[in-house]
C-alpha cells in the first residue's frame, strides 16, 4: 500500500467517504419515498380518497414494503460503514431509543398518575421524537468525531 507525495495527492474524497455518502444518500432517498407514501396513504384514508378495506390494505402493504426497502438500505449503509461511523450510528440510535421509547412510556405513566396534564397522546409523537433525537444524535456524533 503506497501513499503519494503531497503534490500527487488526489483531491477527491477517499473510497470510504464516497461509499458512506452514496449509502447515506440512498437511505435518505428511501426514507423520503417511504415517508411520502406513509403520509399519502394516511391522508387518502382520512379524506376518503382511498376506500377502506382491500384498497387501503394494499396501500398500507405497499408503504410497508417501501419501509422495508429503507431498512435494507440502512443495513447496507451500516455494513459498509467504517467502525467510527457505526459507533456514531449506535450512539444516535441509543439516544433516539432512550428519548423516544423510554420517554414516551414515562410520559404515559406520568399522565396516568396525574403529574402532567392529559393530552391526546399519539404513537406518532413518540416516533417523531425518536426520529428527531436520532438525527440530533448523528449530528452531535459527527461533530464530536470530526
Amino acid at each position, binding site marked *: 500500500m503506497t501513499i503519494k507525495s503531497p503534490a500527487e495527492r488526489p483531491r477527491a474524497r477517499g473510497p470510504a*467517504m464516497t461509499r458512506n455518502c452514496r449509502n447515506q444518500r440512498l437511505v435518505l432517498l428511501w426514507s423520503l419515498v417511504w415517508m411520502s407514501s406513509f403520509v399519502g396513504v394516511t391522508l387518502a384514508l382520512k379524506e376518503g380518497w382511498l376506500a377502506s378495506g382491500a384498497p387501503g390494505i394494499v396501500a398500507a402493504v405497499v408503504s410497508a414494503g417501501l419501509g422495508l426497502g429503507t431498512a435494507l438500505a440502512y443495513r447496507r449503509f451500516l455494513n459498509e460503514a467504517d467502525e467510527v*461511523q457505526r459507533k456514531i450510528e449506535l450512539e444516535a440510535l441509543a439516544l433516539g431509543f432512550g428519548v423516544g421509547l423510554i420517554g414516551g412510556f414515562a410520559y404515559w405513566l406520568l399522565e396516568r398518575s396525574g403529574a402532567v396534564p392529559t393530552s391526546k397522546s399519539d404513537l406518532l409523537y413518540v416516533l417523531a421524537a425518536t426520529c428527531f433525537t436520532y438525527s440530533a444524535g448523528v449530528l452531535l456524533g459527527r461533530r464530536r468525531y470530526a
Partner: protein
Amino acid sequence: MKNRLKVLRAERDWTQADLAHALDVSRQAVNAIETGKHDPSLPLAFRIARLFGGSVEDIFLMDDKESES
C-alpha cells in the same frame, strides 16, 4: 489507549485524508483514533501497523491504568 499515529503520519508528511484513503476508512475515523476518542478494532490496528511497517505494540500503547486492570 495512547497511540503514535499522529507522529508516524507527520514523519511521512501524510494528511489524515491520505491515511484514511490508504486504510479505507473515513477521515473522521483517523481523527478519532489519533485523538484517542476511539480505539480501533484489532483488524484495523493490524492494518495500521502493516501500513507503517511495525507491530501493533509499536503504535498503540496501553495506559498505565489499563495495563494494571
